[in-house]
């Protein structure tokens, strides 16, 4: 996997967000070692598109989401959002840019201030940015709360603990929407919720996306959830991208051995389905000492000598289907094309 490369990027003029060679490293104490959380990934998201980022814990998917928000700023690489480079922006301009891109988090209860009234929590971004008159602000908050299915009257009287987990996630969504952003980064927004509530929140996100023309980056470890909501999916492993494809295409014909393993590990809620396992031993290696070559080579069922020596680049094996593997499950004879990333 794990490849680097920008072959999968589309024309820069169509993309709302374009990330190139993003690197995020964290120092390990004073040892001089570093955690290679994200090691040179490139992504783009078109306006109105939903990009799913999947991978196991520690693969760098959340770090990627945060680095896009410049929280913290990446070690190197470029993040273009609405045609502006974020990595070189100063503090004040960056704060302003963040009104156009919002984030919602996994734990809806701890991401809301427990001591404040829910309506004030949703109102705050408008107050900070001094948007509109007082009555316009009130109208906007009521509208957004209504939109996510929270009674504005109750929100004015209640604190977060008086709502359920699913409702708190709706409140977080309302707060992220209130400034009318063009993009929302959702970091595991439904993994703390029960399945019945999870379906409500996923349906809500789909509806809001249509209504507001939102662009979503949806980070999750649950492959079925990601498939349901995404137009395009990028699979990550140990700080690199393995495979990028349209949602249906990726699940129909996974080309990377890691994607294959992930898909076959999902428990199927149907006992009559014979389990076809691509067994995988062990657990991901440490991002402090990542393997050489393809980062998946130490666990890959199809690894050969070349895999530990040479890092595979992302290359196109089908329409919009890219894989970073020397010996993919299919499409192995497609040539490696390096498309210029400048346009």
């Amino acid at each position, binding site marked *: 996997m794990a490849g680097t490369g920008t072959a999968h990027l589309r024309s820069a003029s169509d993309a709302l967000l374009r990330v190139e060679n993003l690197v995020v490293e964290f120092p390990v104490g004073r040892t001089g070692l570093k955690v290679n959380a994200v090691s040179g990934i490139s992504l783009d998201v078109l306006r109105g598109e939903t990009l799913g980022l999947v991978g196991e814990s520690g693969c760098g998917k959340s770090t990627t989401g945060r680095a896009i928000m410049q929280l913290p700023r990446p070690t190197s690489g470029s993040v273009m959002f609405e045609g502006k480079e974020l990595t070189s922006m100063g503090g004040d301009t960056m704060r302003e840019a963040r009104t156009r891109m919002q984030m919602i988090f996994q734990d809806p209860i701890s991401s809301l201030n427990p001591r404040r009234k829910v309506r004030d929590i949703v109102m705050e971004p408008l107050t900070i940015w001094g948007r509109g008159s007082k009555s316009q602000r009130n109208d906007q908050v009521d509208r957004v709360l209504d939109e996510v*299915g929270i009674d504005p009257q109750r929100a004015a009287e209640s604190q977060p603990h008086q709502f359920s987990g699913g409702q708190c996630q709706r409140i977080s969504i309302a707060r992220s929407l209130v400034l009318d952003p063009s993009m929302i980064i959702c970091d595991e927004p439904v993994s703390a919720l029960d*399945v019945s509530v999870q379906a409500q929140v996923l349906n809500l996100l789909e509806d809001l996306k249509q209504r507001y023309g939102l662009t979503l980056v949806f980070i999750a470890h649950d492959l079925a959830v990601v498939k349901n909501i995404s137009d395009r999916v990028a699979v990550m492993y140990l700080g690199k991208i393995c495979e990028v494809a349209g949602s249906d295409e990726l699940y129909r014909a996974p080309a990377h051995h890691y994607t294959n393993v992930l898909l076959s590990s999902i428990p199927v*809620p149907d006992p009559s389905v014979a389990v076809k396992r691509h067994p995988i031993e062990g*657990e991901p290696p440490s991002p402090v000492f990542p393997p050489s070559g393809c980062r998946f080579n130490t666990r890959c069922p199809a690894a050969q000598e070349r895999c530990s020596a040479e890092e595979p680049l992302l290359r196109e094996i089908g329409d919009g289907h890219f894989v970073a593997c020397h010996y993919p499950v299919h499409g192995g004879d497609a040539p490696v094309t390096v498309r210029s990333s400048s346009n």
Partner: protein
Amino acid sequence: MSNVSQAASRDITDPLLELTDVKTHFRTARGLVRAVDGVTFNLDRGKALGIVGESGSGKTILSRSIMGLLPPKGAVRSGSIKFEGREIGNLGRKQMRHIWGKEMAMIFQDPMTSLNPLMKIGQQIAEPLKIHLGMDKTSAMATAEKLLQDVRIPEAHRRLAQYPHELSGGMRQRVMIAIALACGPTALFADEPTTALDVTVQAQILDLLNEQRKDRNMSLILVTHDLGVVAGHTDDIAVMYGGQLVEMAPTRVLFANMKMPYTEALMQSIPKIEDPSHTRLTAIGGRPPDLVHPPKGCRFAPRCPYVREKCENEMPQLQQSDLPGHFFRCWYPVGSPEYFESKERNAAKAMASAAPTEVPVSIGEAR
């Protein structure tokens, strides 16, 4: 070892565990919380049972009630729990200590906090061996190493001297399983054993649990919210809702022939990997019942798409379907004439209400 002789006098085909009208209520400032409200079932030796439900359904409290792991204050228990023919529902912690480890063991959701961070792995596995089986230090350590090999931890000998923080989440859950298996229990309770783990590791752990169950002819009780997890790894499934058992059946029967609208709704709300992307999910509106003031009739009635007047007023009892071992709690089960009638009625209603302005999805969640 009085219970060994007692067990010997029992037939091997007798159920290992018999629950009759088990209730666990908690006294709180708000009133009595009916966390588990009358659960009856039997579990055979060597079988795997999945207990499925959403948070607050009572699945964890039920397994803790059987294990005798309830908080000492505030819990009100009634009903009968028989383990190998012996009543254990009324035993205190002191008496349960003889059963824990040797006859029943439990593994928990969070492998990060379930181990003692200050004790080496080897000591933690050897401890129950020394206490319950009276082993000396050398043989306990040797057995501990053997157990680590059984749960497929590489370099078992070296691991004995490591601390929990040196191990990954998946490895720690394997250590928890090794500790639980140490004294050869006849029943193993696993409460969301893989929820904190990655999907590839989850598959490994579930396979390991099942393999150990078969090797040791041990019963496994898998408590989870994930129908996918239980589908491939259990013989029977019990679905809980609002503190009650609402459906119970052999796994294949349940998935092929579910009778309870809640089970159906739960299945439909899961995003399926086979469905094309952007498939609209069938969400269950509303939220689980308040167990201080549970609904008078069927507890699922306020959220049930097929609800009728009778459902709101009379609580249905668990009844058997025409298939062996299949029980459900519903007046108008999936497949009945009333079910189809309600379904058509709902479809007509949805058509009519979809015409004017679109309303956000939440039905009833915002009270």
